[in-house]
């Protein structure tokens, strides 16, 4: 449907108002026919009833189009009802009204109240009920219990219908979100299957066949391998990474670093951490891997191992680069240079964890992050 999305659940409500509008119109006309002999100005009833019938038809037609259910229509609806109500003392006569002869709007006056409630919820319904009710009370000489009850019922109708209308809108939006999410997930799975069966296999094949060639072909093979790893991470079966939310799986964050040069080893079960902690750990691992890429020389490889045991999470990042000469880290710290080690230590210290860096020239570097987690 091309209608605005927050409308389809309300369609039955608008239809019921239209039915009520015609039923109450018939009631008003019947009442007028019965009591016309008691009216102060019987001929005044003719234009009043003409307006009543004409507006009932017009309003039903106009309210059926969602684009027109705006303030002009709601305002006009209420204004016409007020005009009929305020014309009643003159047409029907004050004494007749006080003797119990119905006004020119009787039950019909609830129509704008319902329309306001459906269009804008409880508060709007209550406002319209109070406006119509006040007009109804002011045209009477004395406030009878019947008219007070009528006012209360109208207020109740406005609030209750407004509440139901709001519920309808909310559940519709919720349903819409669920449907969108499901469609997105299904589409993602479909793409992942397709990509897995074709593109990934071919990229892996290109990488494999080109690996032992020289020059440009080897470069192409290497690029194919990188794309294979990136694409695989993108379509892997896990749900999309959540930025917010209470807990995330640290594995999904570390998987983002996988490439032909970076191996990620992790348990098969999720390693859940509060989102902020997981992203800090991810950033620390990212910093360590950046350092490998920068100082490890071309062709340096790195291995990330994620372990969880007895409430402790350990992430190790090892590389086969040239390693850090002894004393180099301390020297850098003394000179006030915030090296990569510092940034990793800083991040993990903030989380209450510890960092160990082991390195020797020619033996690569190993960074081990340890973090206690409750549970």
């Amino acid at each position, binding site marked *: 449907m091309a209608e605005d999305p927050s409308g389809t659940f309300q369609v039955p409500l608008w239809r019921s108002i239209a039915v009520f509008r015609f039923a109450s119109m018939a009631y008003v006309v019947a009442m007028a026919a019965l009591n016309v002999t008691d009216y102060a100005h019987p001929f005044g009833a003719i234009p009043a009833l003409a307006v009543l019938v004409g507006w009932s038809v017009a309003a039903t037609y106009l309210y059926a189009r969602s684009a027109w259910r705006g303030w002009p229509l709601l305002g006009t609806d209420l204004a016409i009802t007020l005009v009929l109500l305020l014309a009643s003392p003159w047409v029907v006569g004050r004494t007749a009204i006080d003797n119990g002869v119905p006004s020119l709007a009787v039950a019909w006056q609830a129509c704008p109240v319902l329309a306001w409630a459906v269009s804008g919820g409880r508060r709007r319904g209550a406002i319209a009920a109070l406006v119509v009710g006040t007009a109804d009370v002011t045209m009477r000489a004395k406030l009878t219990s019947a008219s007070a009850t009528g006012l209360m019922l109208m207020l109740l109708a406005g609030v209750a219908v407004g509440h139901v209308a709001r519920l309808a809108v909310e559940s519709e939006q919720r349903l819409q979100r669920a449907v969108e999410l499901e469609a997105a997930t299904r589409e993602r799975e479909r793409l992942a299957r397709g990509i*897995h*069966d074709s593109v*990934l*296999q*071919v990229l*892996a*094949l290109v*990488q*494999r*066949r080109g*690996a*032992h060639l020289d020059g440009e072909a080897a470069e192409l093979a290497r690029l194919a*391998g990188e794309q*294979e*790893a990136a694409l*695989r*991470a993108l*379509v*892997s*079966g896990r749900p999309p990474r959540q930025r917010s939310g209470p807990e995330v799986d640290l594995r999904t964050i570390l*998987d983002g670093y*996988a490439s*032909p040069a970076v*191996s*990620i*080893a*992790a*348990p*098969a*079960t999720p390693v859940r951490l509060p989102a902020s902690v997981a992203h800090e750990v991810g950033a620390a691992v990212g910093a360590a891997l950046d350092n490998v890429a920068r100082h490890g020389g071309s062709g340096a*490889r*790195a*291995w990330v*191992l*994620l*372990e*969880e*045991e007895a409430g402790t999470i350990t992430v*190790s990042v*090892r590389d*086969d680069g040239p390693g850090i000469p002894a004393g180099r880290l301390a020297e850098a710290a003394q000179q006030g240079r915030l090296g990569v080690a510092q940034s990793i230590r800083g991040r993990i210290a903030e989380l209450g964890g510890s960092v160990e860096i082991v390195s020797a020239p020619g033996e690569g570097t*190993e960074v081990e992050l340890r973090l206690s987690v409750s549970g």
Partner: protein
Amino acid sequence: MTRVMVVDDHPMWRQGVARDLAEAGYDVVATTGEGGQAVRIAPAARPDVVVLDLQLPDISGVEVIRGLLAALPGVRILMLSASGQEQSVLDAVKAGATGYLVKSASPEEFLDAVRRTAAGDTVFTPGLAGLVLGEYRRLAKGGGPAEDEAAPRLTDRETEVLRLVAKGLSYKQIAARLSLSHRTVQNHVQNTLGKLQLHNRVELTRYAIEQGLDSPD
């Protein structure tokens, strides 16, 4: 001559692998793209090593491995997978596969893995070592029902070796670092898989017995 069967649903990949194997002096006795067919023809083809893609269109990797081992006890299975399917790799290892390699490995790595698998060695990737470590810890934590004492455990040495494998060290490097022989490192790695596979078989048997005893007759 070592007899090899290649099971992979991607024709290009299958042919490429078969050609590499033939060039390296292996006897490629069968190639197929379906797990069910692989199990059916295994007794006739009698491969020593099966190179198996974990993701096949018809049946799961675990089913293929069980079928192959039932048809040809002692056959060596080297699995390949293109993507990070942690759980299925772990299940396959527990079902009895003795080697694992990612599909993006170079032809040299692949041929080396086939050679070692044929020789009876276990072929680990760092990723698989991480999975196996995680599995032992899950079992130790008592994730499953009533398996406190039955849960297999790693010795400190085995844990140490497995962690080094997961960090990308070769068996040779591990042997040098821990002052062990290459063979000892290999044995430790093999034991870690052996215990998991044994535990898996015991669990399956226990499950079958429970089902059998509980069924009304």
